[in-house]
């Protein structure tokens, strides 16, 4: 039996282990061949900023981990209009570039998945 999974993360990349843990959950789902989507809300949209030099604070960059997602067939990455607006970002300047949803579309996205894992 296959179930669709949505992983929702709300944390900035180096605030806690959340960014890495969210990706680990998504990758584990992919290993089980479950269709998995990633929803990055609020500060989590900052995970998608390219060129992060996190070595300066002794952390591994999330860029490499996010870059590996297509190899696991995880290519559905979403954020919200409000998250982008809060940080003054455009989806096109992010890598990977997320699909941007308004409030109603967010509800539909969450409703459309059988399992929702939050962090």
């Amino acid at each position, binding site marked *: 039996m296959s*179930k669709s*999974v949505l992983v929702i993360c709300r944390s900035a990349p180096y605030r806690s282990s959340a960014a890495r843990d969210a990706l680990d959950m998504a990758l584990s789902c992919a290993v*089980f061949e479950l269709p998995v989507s990633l929803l990055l809300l609020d500060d989590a949209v900052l995970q998608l900023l390219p060129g992060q030099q996190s070595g300066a604070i002794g952390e591994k960059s999330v860029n490499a981990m996010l870059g590996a997602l297509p190899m696991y067939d995880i290519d559905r990455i979403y954020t919200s209009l409000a998250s982008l607006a809060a940080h003054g970002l455009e989806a096109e300047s992010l890598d990977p570039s997320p699909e941007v949803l308004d409030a109603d579309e967010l509800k539909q996205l969450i409703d459309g998945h059988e399992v929702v894992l939050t*962090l």
Partner: protein
Amino acid sequence: MIFTIVVHSAPYQSGSAATALRFTRAALDAGHRIHRVFFYREGVHNASALASPPRDERSLPAEWQAVAQEYDLDLVVCIAAAVRRGVLNQEEARRYEKPAANLAEGFELSGLGQLVEASIQSDRVVTFGGGR
């Protein structure tokens, strides 16, 4: 209904771990099944055998053990999250050459695959804690 419970918070980090425990008991008392309780992130500290709160205070590790014994629950702790944070069983303590193991009895270290498998088997997956 079959539930899986996911715990992301340590005992004193927030009220979430205690809420997860009450939810687990309430679901079982109402006749539901718990397929698994999965401890991830700071939640791994619920499985420490070394937590020693004063006698007149609750001990979440002890309460998880009690409910697990009563209902034959599967308490699984994410091995990668646990080893990072210093919650080790005998085998991992040997592997990493540490002087002691502290995984409480009744808990088991295993991989994130256990969360995925539980998600597939369960009607509902309910997450407690996180947000950080």
